C-alpha cells in the first residue's frame, strides 16, 4: 500500500467534505477515532480496475454533514441519503486520481451494509485514510478485486 495513495484518499475526503458540506478537517482526532463506527456506506466501481470505496463515520460526523447539507430537520432517511452521496462523491473523485483521468469508471449506487465490518467485502485493501473533524472521524478504505 503506497503512502501517497493514502495521502490522496485523505486529500480527496477532506476536499469533498469541505466542498459538499463546508466541513474543515481538524488537526487531530481528539480521541474520536476510538469511538465506534456510527454509520457506513460503500460504492462499487468498475472499469480498468474493479473495487469498492468504503466510508465509515465515527462520532456524530454524519449528523453534522446532514445538518450542513439539509438543515436541522434532516431525518434518518435524509442522513442515509447524505451518507450515500458522500460515498459516491469520494469514490468518484479518488478513482481517477489513482488510475488517471483518461480511465472510464462506472459507479454503482451506494450500499449500506448492516454489518459495517470490512471483512464482509473480501477484497484487498489498496489504500486507507482517516480525516478528523470536530464532530467525528471519516475513515475511507479503497479495496480492489
Amino acid at each position: 500500500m503506497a503512502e501517497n495513495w493514502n495521502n490522496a484518499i485523505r486529500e480527496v475526503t477532506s476536499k469533498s467534505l469541505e466542498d459538499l458540506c463546508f466541513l474543515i478537517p481538524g488537526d487531530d482526532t481528539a480521541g474520536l477515532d476510538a469511538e465506534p463506527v456510527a454509520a457506513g456506506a460503500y460504492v462499487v466501481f468498475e472499469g480498468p480496475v474493479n473495487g469498492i470505496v468504503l466510508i465509515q463515520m465515527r462520532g456524530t460526523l454524519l449528523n453534522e454533514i446532514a445538518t450542513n447539507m439539509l438543515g436541522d430537520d434532516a431525518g434518518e432517511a435524509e442522513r442515509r441519503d447524505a451518507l450515500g452521496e458522500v460515498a459516491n462523491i469520494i469514490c468518484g473523485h479518488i478513482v481517477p486520481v489513482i488510475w488517471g483521468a483518461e480511465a472510464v469508471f462506472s459507479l454503482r449506487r451506494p450500499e449500506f451494509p448492516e454489518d459495517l465490518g470490512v471483512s464482509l467485502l473480501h477484497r484487498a485493501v489498496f489504500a486507507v485514510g482517516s480525516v478528523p473533524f470536530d464532530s467525528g472521524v471519516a475513515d475511507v478504505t479503497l479495496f480492489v478485486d
Partner: protein
Amino acid sequence: MALRVLVVDDSAVMRSMVVKVLHMTGLPIVEIREAENGKAGLEALEQGGIDLALVDINMPVMDGLTMLDLVRANPKLASLPIVVVSTEGSDKRIKELRDKGAAFIRKPFAPEALVDAVVNAIGGG
C-alpha cells in the same frame, strides 16, 4: 426568458441541494420539477414545458446516459439543453457527453459553477 427546469437525480438530498442552488442563482426560474431516475425524467420531458434538464448519471431504473441518448433520439426533445451533474468526471466521459450535446458539471459543485453551466447550456454564455 422564464425557465422551467427538471432536476433528475436518485438522491433526494442532491436534488434538494441543486434546487436550493438554482433558487439562489438569480436565473429567471419559474418552475423546478424533480425526477428520481432517467425513466421518470424522460416521462416528465415528454409531458412538455421543460426548458432545461439537470441530470445525474448513476441512477437506478434508467441511468442518465441512457436518458440522454433517448432525449437526443426524440425529435421533439433532441435540442433540449442538458447539464449532466455527476461525480463521474473522466476526460473520456466528459468528451462523450459533449459529443452528445450535453454540458457537464462535477459534484460537488460551487453555486457559481452551476450558474455558468446553466447559462452556457441555455445559450446565454
